[in-house]
């Protein structure tokens, strides 16, 4: 449990801009500061989530806004980098060690294959350095072990793309049909192009304060960051790029992260009004239904088919459009989810508004190395 409050949020749309990560990050950071009603000099620390850029990347972004002199530290945990900044930032403000912390996620991912996923030379030479292949194996397992069909995978993409039509910050804003998804180019079967997210560019930021500091400053519309859990993998978890894994039933990093977050926040899945989860590929969203406790194992497809996870349903998932529509700027992704949840809880989501949203969950999975679940409430 933290007593951290999200005092402000900012975002740079996700897409392809070719302007360099510094400018994307500066846009999101300055919007968050302004939303929180503070300036750069009011911060006690800056934590920057990024995977691929050069050293001192955080400094390079912040320098476009000023030179606050406080620590500017970079945090990397693959796709869970953002969560790392939230974990550290929330503990710092909750403990009273710091009053205001900026958590910024920014990425300018190259097109195509994610080259620095940690493949060893022999894996690369052998042809094993194909990120989508690892997700394809997990997708095949889902199709074999549950009632999920390839049409269900397509329908996850259809749902999320439909949600993104009204999200100005998403890269892909066109709806698509099941047929279009099924007919899109095969990448690694059973996954087609439209069932996989594309790494891209973007930034998102939040300002964290302790509850007392937010009150002292008279922050308008704060949202509580009730819990953030980050767990790293154990011997029996699958990850990218695992050369091997235990044959017997594997544990779930996401489930462990979710259990800890629910316990710390004092809630259960039934208390959630909306979820932003890691849909790196369509199957990952269905796995998340189970691992986040939204349904029993085996009922993932049934939950999707019921329409419950569409906007307007009883458990909307990825109303932002998810990674499938937004794309994935790795370091920024998780903070982008928080931006969505915060705007929803503030009632500022316009056509994407989930009615009476007061409790949201954000889930990221960093290539199987770290998983994180965060709970935000009004």
């Amino acid at each position: 449990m933290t007593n951290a409050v999200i005092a402000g949020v900012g975002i740079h749309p996700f897409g392809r801009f070719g302007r360099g990560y510094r400018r994307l990050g500066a846009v999101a950071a300055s919007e968050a500061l302004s939303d929180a009603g503070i300036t750069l000099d009011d911060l006690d620390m800056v934590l920057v989530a990024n995977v691929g850029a050069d050293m001192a990347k955080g400094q390079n972004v912040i320098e476009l806004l000023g030179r606050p002199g406080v620590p500017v530290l970079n945090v990397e945990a693959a796709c869970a980098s953002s969560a790392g900044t939230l974990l550290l930032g929330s503990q710092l403000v909750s403990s009273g060690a710091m009053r205001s912390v900026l958590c910024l996620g920014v990425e300018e991912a190259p097109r195509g294959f994610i080259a620095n996923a940690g493949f060893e030379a022999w894996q690369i030479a052998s042809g094993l350095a194909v990120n989508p292949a690892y997700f394809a194996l997990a997708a095949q397992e889902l199709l074999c072990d549950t009632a999920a069909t390839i049409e269900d995978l397509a329908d996850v993409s259809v749902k999320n793309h439909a949600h993104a039509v009204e999200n100005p910050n998403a890269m892909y804003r066109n709806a698509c049909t099941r047929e279009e998804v099924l007919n899109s180019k095969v990448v690694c079967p059973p996954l087609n192009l439209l069932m996989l997210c594309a790494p891209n560019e973007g930034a998102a930021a939040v300002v964290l304060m302790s509850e007392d500091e937010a009150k002292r400053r008279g922050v308008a519309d704060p949202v509580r960051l009730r819990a953030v859990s980050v767990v790293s993998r154990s011997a029996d978890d699958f990850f990218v790029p695992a050369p091997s894994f235990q044959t017997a039933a594997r544990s779930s990093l996401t489930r462990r992260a979710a259990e800890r977050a629910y316990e710390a926040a004092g809630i259960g899945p039934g208390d959630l009004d909306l979820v932003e989860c890691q849909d790196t590929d369509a199957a990952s969203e269905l796995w998340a239904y189970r691992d986040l406790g939204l349904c029993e194992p085996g009922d993932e497809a049934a939950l999707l088919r019921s329409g419950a996870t569409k906007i307007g349903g009883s458990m909307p998932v990825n109303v932002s459009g998810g990674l499938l529509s937004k794309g994935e700027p790795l370091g920024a992704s998780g903070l982008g989810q928080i931006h969505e949840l915060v705007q929803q809880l503030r009632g500022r989501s316009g056509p994407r508004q989930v009615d009476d949203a007061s409790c949201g969950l954000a889930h990221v999975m960093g290539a199987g190395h770290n998983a994180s679940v965060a709970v935000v409430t009004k």
Partner: protein
Amino acid sequence: MGDVALSTEAVVEGFTAVMYPPPGALVEAPYAIIAAGFDEGVTVLGVGVGILVDELAIGDRVECIATMIGDAIGFGFRFSKEPLR
């Protein structure tokens, strides 16, 4: 923690195909990536050797063999000489 010698035969637990090899790959596409389960309780990922991905089914028996990858010796999986189908 010590070394365990794995048997050479394994069961296909999962597979996919790669159409476009990534930079640095020394194998020609298309090829299969196979998750092969050994009796010792570990599943190993490897590339299919002489396997058309359309021929694969979960439950097939494969054997692990040494294979040339560029100038180096690597490993891959090919169908067992006596497949149980």
